[in-house]
């Protein structure tokens, strides 16, 4: 399964994981604490890499070429003798930006289309729904590849591609929520009280339809990070020597037989980020659910 694809997978999985985990939150809290701690570290590295990194991520040192982990360089050095730990720390920013940016595109686009499909006139609903059907018929990674074919190979287009590819799933979720909220008593009451259509939508429908989106979007950030890393891995996202995790991994692949750490460390970092984001997203889901009941 591709990483872009796993966005959907993770959403499905988190639904069942959530179901399994319900009522045993005490058991999971050490995991939640670890996940939060790891995410905090990643966010810190993204905001202030200079504070944490022991070296310059682009500083080339021929003597250290493919050096194994040591005290001075805990993760070793890459094929140009650049300190891997520093590159990983500087790579947190682009990876996190990819996750948050792509998710923002997906959520905004998905919300607009979902509202149109849920509240618009019948004709618009039909057109939007068929449009979403097309989007959902094509795996997210393939949609992202189409955007890159027409856009180009860069970090920006990779972000745009992952974001656009996730729009159909978000739109479907929003529409389902809008349809559910539309028929609730409080919306009926607000309409009966004479509130305008737009007021009802903005004050009542939108906030309640967006609530479950928070959990999905949180988990979606993890999936988007993985998808962006996949594109970098395919040589279609961030280009070397930019210290993005997927790009570090893609270059490291050439040295996998001699220095496995070059591949394993970014792979583990990406995986831990996705897991942490999923765990935190599930916790948020449990809290919001608890508050509702």
């Amino acid at each position, binding site marked *: *399964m*591709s*990483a*872009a*694809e*796993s966005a*959907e*997978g*993770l959403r*499905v*999985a988190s639904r*069942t*994981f959530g*179901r*399994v*985990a319900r009522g*045993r939150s005490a*058991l999971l809290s050490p*995991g939640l604490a670890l996940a939060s701690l790891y995410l905090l570290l990643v966010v810190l590295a993204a905001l202030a890499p200079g504070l944490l990194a022991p070296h310059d991520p682009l500083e080339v040192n021929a003597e250290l070429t493919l050096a194994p982990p040591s005290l001075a360089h805990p993760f070793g050095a890459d094929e140009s003798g650049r300190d891997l730990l520093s590159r990983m720390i500087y790579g947190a920013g682009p990876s996190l930006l990819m996750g948050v940016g792509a998710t923002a595109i997906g959520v905004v686009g998905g919300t607009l289309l979902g509202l149109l499909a849920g509240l618009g006139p019948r004709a618009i609903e039909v057109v939007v729904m*068929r*449009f979403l*059907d*097309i989007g959902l*018929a*094509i*795996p*997210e*990674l*393939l*949609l992202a*590849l*189409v955007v*890159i*074919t*027409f856009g180009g*190979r860069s970090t920006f287009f990779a972000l745009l591609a992952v974001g656009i590819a996730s729009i159909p799933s978000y739109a479907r979720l929003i529409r389902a929520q809008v349809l559910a909220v539309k028929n609730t008593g409080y919306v009926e009451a607000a309409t009966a009280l004479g509130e305008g259509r737009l007021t009802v939508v903005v004050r009542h429908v939108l906030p309640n339809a967006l609530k479950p989106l928070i959990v999905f979007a949180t988990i979606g950030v*993890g999936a988007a990070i*993985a*998808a962006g*890393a*996949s594109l970098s*891995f*395919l*040589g*279609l996202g961030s280009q070397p020597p930019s210290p993005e995790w997927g790009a570090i*991994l893609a270059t490291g*692949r050439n040295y*996998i*037989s001699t220095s*496995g750490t070059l*591949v*394993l460390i970014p*792979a*583990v970092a*990406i*995986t831990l980020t*996705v*897991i942490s984001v*999923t*765990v935190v997203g599930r916790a948020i889901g449990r809290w919001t659910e608890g508050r509702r009941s």
Partner: protein
Amino acid sequence: MTAVASSAPFAFIRHRLARHRLVRVIGVRLLTGVVVLWGAATLAFLAMHGVKGDPALAALGPDANPTPEVLRQIRLEYGLDQPWYVQYLTYLGRLAHGDLGQSYVLRTSVATAIGQQIGQTVQLALSAAIIAVVLAVVVGTLTAKRGPVIRSATSGIALVFASMPSFAVGLALLVAFSFTLHWFPVSGNQGLASLVLPSFAMALPIAAVLTQILRASLEDVLEQPFILTARTRGMRDAAVRVRHGLRHALIPLVTMTGFVVGGLLGGAVITETLFVRQGIGRLLINAVQAKDVPIVLGVVLFAALVHVVVNLIVDIVYTAIDPRIETA
């Protein structure tokens, strides 16, 4: 449809109703599928002709510097001198005949290029799908309702594999089984041994999701009264799980087919690149890198077709095995 036997005199009516319903379901789904494909084809046409500047220049490749004479020749050849609606209808007509156009780079037709690569990808996808489903069924059946320790352990492992990007799974397998243990080859298309690691790399993330879903539905089923009845008859636990539980628990798994197929298609792109295998995924990546638009759009349309056909089959199977389900 199993209840038919008890009401023998009206059996034929029930039977005809059931058949009528199945036909209606197929009809509606077929129509939706055709609309999806038509829409996808229209978007592909727009992408090829609307966005990308001069298609005649694009057809000659990025480095071409043609004379006006050559360009006119190309326009004639591809019908680019025709009005847009003629081009559009010609395009749809060709698609209906399976003609996806010419590759800009490969100098073959897109259909031929896909045809040459599809076998390898189907082989990989099939073995991955079998591994994923078998793993999910075995692990799900063994671990359902087994107490908190086993539940947390399998949930945790499943979470890791569902979260891991598939290239990370593949790389981990490569480091462990190719570079350290030397059990399997690193890359290539030769023989069964070269199929093992790529199949598992694609299967594990899918299996992780399926296991959780299967176990959740199995736990629901195992609380049903007929399970208790079976147990009071003295049936062994394993037999109860497999003979009674699994049969019902498998139904929700069928709804995941679309997700699995999508996962396999996307996964093929990553896995074939990682393990340097021939296939649709590699074809697509090479085309994206070379900006070979007809190949990219051809593979995407092909993916949409696979999605539509698979979902049609799933709907038919679903309505056939569970007559309670009403389709819109």
